């Protein structure tokens, strides 16, 4: 029967062309939507890498201008002690501008054993960063005072960079990057990759440097972990304390929780837009498919009557029409899958292959379900056609 139906479809390829094109376009749009959705979900289920609740970001501009590094250090150390003295402050760390969930980026390439890794995010942090964000350390340790006196500069890398450089092997104690002896970087720890771009977007590999005495000139943010009960009154007090100390500096306090919300919001907008567009498209396709199948049944009443006369049951007529639609869908999906599979093969958009494959499988299942649902009712209508009436009409 399959061969027979395939022959029937093949011989009607001109009539079926538009319907197949419609199914193909639906598949491609659904592939894009599902890939994006699965990409977001895949990132969402990964650990955040930090505990961002009760962490505030204080933006400062470095108002204290001096060429004397000791004076600069003293100025900021005093600021640190002043903030730390506040009862609701648990920990703090001066950091580079690219804090979690901020729009700032500082990235570059890294060459390791001849292999170039693009988009490595560089972070400058202090020893308190680990406790301020409660970073998950997977191997080794976070920075401490000893790192100020080591022969080679200590760095901490995240799990993504470790995978890209050392794979499953040991990273702690090894050098990273193809640098000369003087500039070698020694890995002292590996941390869980921090989802700095929010819940849904892949953060990419990261390398953490320990701030040195000259870093205060450009470290523009302070991460502060506060007690869970810290409220607006405390925020006001913190602001006032800082404003009194840094008289000519603009100070802005943000909460990481809110920043994450904003970041997530901007990430999901394209998905929402795409989903709305695809919803309209799916409704359009469903109605089109339904209409075409309905039209086909009316056009083929004579054939349906004949089939009933020569031995087809109502159910077999119904399942024939559904199967024909499914064969058409299969042909469209084969063509669509050929295009879709190029994305992981050619590594378009740098997404993992399993994200594309899952998107493709979900799109295939959805198209089949859509076609099945749209053809069931017309199929049942066909089964209800009275053969004597249908044959007489012809």
């Amino acid at each position, binding site marked *: 029967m399959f061969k027979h139906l395939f022959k029937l479809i093949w011989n009607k390829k001109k009539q079926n062309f538009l319907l197949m094109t419609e199914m193909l376009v639906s598949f491609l749009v659904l592939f894009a939507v599902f890939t994006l959705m699965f990409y977001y979900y895949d990132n969402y289920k990964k650990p955040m890498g930090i505990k961002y609740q009760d962490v505030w970001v204080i933006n400062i501009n470095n108002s204290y201008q001096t060429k004397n590094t000791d004076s600069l250090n003293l100025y900021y150390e005093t600021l640190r002690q002043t903030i730390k003295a506040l009862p609701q402050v648990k920990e703090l760390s001066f950091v580079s501008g690219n804090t979690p969930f901020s729009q700032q980026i500082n990235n570059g390439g890294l060459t390791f054993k001849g292999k170039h890794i693009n988009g490595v995010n560089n972070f400058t942090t202090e020893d308190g960063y680990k406790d301020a964000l409660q970073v998950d350390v997977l191997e080794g340790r976070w920075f401490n005072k000893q790192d100020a006196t080591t022969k080679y500069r200590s760095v901490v890398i995240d799990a993504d960079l470790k995978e890209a450089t050392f794979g499953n092997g040991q990273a702690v104690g090894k050098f990273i990057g193809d640098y000369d002896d003087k500039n070698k970087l020694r890995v002292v720890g590996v941390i869980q990759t921090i989802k700095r771009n929010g819940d849904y977007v892949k953060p990419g590999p990261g390398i953490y440097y320990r701030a040195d005495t000259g870093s205060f000139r450009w470290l523009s943010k302070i991460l502060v972990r506060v007690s869970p009960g810290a409220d607006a009154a405390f925020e006001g007090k913190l602001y006032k304390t800082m404003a009194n100390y840094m008289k000519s500096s603009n100070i802005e306090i943000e909460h990481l929780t809110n920043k994450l919300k904003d970041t997530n919001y901007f990430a999901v907008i394209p998905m929402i837009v795409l989903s709305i567009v695809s919803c309209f498209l799916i409704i359009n396709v469903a109605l089109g498919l339904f209409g075409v199948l309905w039209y086909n049944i009316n056009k083929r009443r004579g054939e349906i009557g*004949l089939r009933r006369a*020569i031995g087809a049951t109502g159910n077999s007529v119904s399942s024939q029409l559904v199967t024909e639609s499914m064969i058409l869908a299969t042909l469209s999906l084969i063509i669509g899958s050929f295009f879709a599979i190029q994305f992981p093969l050619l590594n378009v958009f740098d997404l993992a292959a399993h994200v594309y494959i899952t998107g493709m499988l979900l799109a295939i299942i959805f198209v089949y379900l859509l076609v099945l649902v749209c053809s069931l009712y017309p199929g049942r209508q066909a089964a209800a056609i009275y053969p004597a009436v249908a044959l007489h009409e012809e």
Partner: protein
Amino acid sequence: MIRLQNIEKVYRTDTIETLALNSVSLDVAKGEFLSIMGPSGCGKSTLLNIMGLLDVPSKGSIKIADKATENLNDKQLAQFRNKTLGFIFQSYHLINDLQVLDNVELPLLYRDTTAKERKMLATEALEKVGLANRVKHFPTQLSGGQRQRVAIARAIVGRPDIILADEPTGNLDSAMGNEIMDILINLNRNEGTTIVMVTHDENMAHKTHRLVRLFDGSQVQ
């Protein structure tokens, strides 16, 4: 072979009731070639549809090949039609998107047969109607007479005991009509197939064993 007893068929709409067949009783013997005649709208096709189990009577009983058909379900009816009955229609009812061979194979698709068997039986049926050289053609590439011969091949491919023909020569000129009639007569004579044919043509009807006339839904001869 076919026994119709007190068949009555009423078509009902919201406002009117039309009596299409009024207490028709008919016996068709095995191997008989029977023709049914009557003016348009007298119930000939309705009677044929009821005989072919394509329609159900409002009253009366039908027995085909000693089998009562009233209580058969959709599946049993379909199987019965497939194995026992062959249909020929005035407008051929060929599927234009299928080649001649595929059209002839159609009834066998609803049976447990292999592709090889189907091809063999269909080729054999086409040889009987003289169209073995047209297997790859599409119906639209054939003349009316050839199309009807394809329809006959499709009707006989499953080797049914009974063929029901609804004005098989109605759309053909007399020469073509005679050709088709000869094929049906040969089938009846050589294979012993029981044939019931509805026709408007007296000449064709006189070539059959028996003629039944209907008028306003009742049997008058």
